[in-house]
């Protein structure tokens, strides 16, 4: 895979990613990141969450601007529906993460992408949330992601792209594996 002769451009700076990988192998402390979000309750089930600062490469970092996201519940839950449901935000995170991975891996493997579309579906039995049946899980039972990918590559190479992207995806790891969560509170 020679980068200099490649005409493939998915808009991913793979050289920079590989450089970072090399630098952080030598200095693993820099690889320790902390991601943050803040959340403000508005009214009812409506909240607004924001992200801006994070920590990484040994120092405080910032997005180029603050991003904010409204979450709420739909009207069938007697809510005002001022934003996506939080569980949909999880799907948004998974889709964004896997798709970014596909673009990066494709660039690295010299595969030109023309279009990448994902459809995500997550099944949930809300008897769990509502406390109707203690045997029903509160969260998703199952997540299905379907990709439609148009690229200059064989079906097998495209499947390998998607598989590799799952292997390297943080959100895929977060939703497939247990994580300790600590919630503290101050009055």
């Amino acid at each position, binding site marked *: 895979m020679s980068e200099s002769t490649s005409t493939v451009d998915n808009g991913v700076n793979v050289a920079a990613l590989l450089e970072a990988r090399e630098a952080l192998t030598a200095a693993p402390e820099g690889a320790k990141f902390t991601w943050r979000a803040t959340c403000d309750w508005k009214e009812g089930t409506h909240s607004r969450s924001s992200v801006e600062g994070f920590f990484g490469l040994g120092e405080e970092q910032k997005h180029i601007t603050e991003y904010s996201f409204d979450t709420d519940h739909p009207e069938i839950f007697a809510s005002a529906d001022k934003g996506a449901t939080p569980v949909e935000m999880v799907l948004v995170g998974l889709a964004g993460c896997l798709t970014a991975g596909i673009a990066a891996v494709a660039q690295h493997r010299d595969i030109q992408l023309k279009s990448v579309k994902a459809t995500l579906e997550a099944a949930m039995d809300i008897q769990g949330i509502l406390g109707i049946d203690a045997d029903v899980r509160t969260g998703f039972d*199952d997540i299905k992601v379907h990709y439609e990918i148009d690229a200059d590559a064989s079906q*097998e190479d495209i499947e*390998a792209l998607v598989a590799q992207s799952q292997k390297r995806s943080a959100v*895929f790891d977060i939703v*497939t*594996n*247990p994580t300790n969560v600590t919630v503290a509170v101050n009055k």
Partner: protein
Amino acid sequence: MTDAGRDRFRPAGTIDVVVIGAGHAGLATSYCLSERSIEHVVLERGEVANSWRKERWDSLTLLTPNWQSTLPGFRYSGDDPDGFMSMPEVIRFISDYADFSAAPVRTNTAVTSVRLNGDGYQVTTNEGTWRCRSLVIASGACNVAVTPAVADAIPATINTLTPHEYHGPEQIEAGGVLVVGASATGMQLADEIQRAGHDITIAVGEHVRMPRTYRGRDIQFWLDAAGILNERYDEVDDIVRARRLPSPQLVGAHEPAMLDLNNLTDNGAKLVGRLMGVRDGVAQFSGSLRNVCALADLKMHRMLDTMDEWAATSPQASQFEAIERYERTRVDASADLTLSLKDGAIRTIVWATGFRPDYSWLDVPVLDRKGRIRHDGGVAESPGMYVVGLPVLRRRKSSFIHGTEDDVRDLTSHLADYLDHGVA
């Protein structure tokens, strides 16, 4: 007897080279040093081929066929070139090699520390202290059976075994068994324990799927012929990854043609994802099972493509059977994510979660933060120090018996230069 061989009974003292370990790699090194008339001693904590005697389960056979059992100056000479050696046969093969090469082996000599000493090393053993200018570490890649941190959370009512503690299925108490890991070790133990009548659940992370026989020839024939085994460490795409790759799902036997996850599930085993945690006596598995299986299927077929490409250009092309492609690994849409370790269904956990070398005796600052020796193709960062017999040390075949010769010839040549010129 070579000059070096006559040194067998000299007392500990000063010598050009100390080789640690009298397994196949240490003995091959000794042979090549003797060829160059380089004075050396081989220190062995137990007997020749000690790990093969003490740290292998009873039914294990070599993963490479007999025709591939070659060491410098020595090769398999029996009448079953396509067979696979049992452990007693491997021990005899390596012992015969030690006799043939008259290697200056000190058995029952355990190294307790190695430290820098001037421009060389001081090697302390339970049988005296050696000083040498050069040191070859051939102490093995699998000294310690690694268990994950989560092992500490397993309820005390469950029996746990590492592959070093496992000898045969008669050790396993009646009841279900969770095998953690799906490399050659995990697959072989799961299969053997399942055949002995136990219900098997196997936790599957990243693995390497591979048929034993492909197009009528052993897979080792293909790996060799297509040039895969000879790929050099400095040409491999990602050497760190190549070196920690789990061993392929092979067993040294002609049947089944492929010991894969489909084969295990056909016989009743249940697949779950990688073991990620244990909470309140309940094991938690990753939801990535489908993807790790998809990755292994894709990689196996890519490897077979490489072999088919080689075959198409080979003068032997007409001798090979037809191209084969295999059924994908079957994974239940709703593979279990949890498993109770308290309800009595699972009685035993077998940790097939890998091995690592033991360098607890090595008091020279050459270890990286993961406890591995920092080296360039076996030339350690500390001048005059070498390591042999590790996975993908210099070539993909490095950890196989037949892969030892090329590595050891390269490294003893480097070592001879070092002794002559003192330059690393």
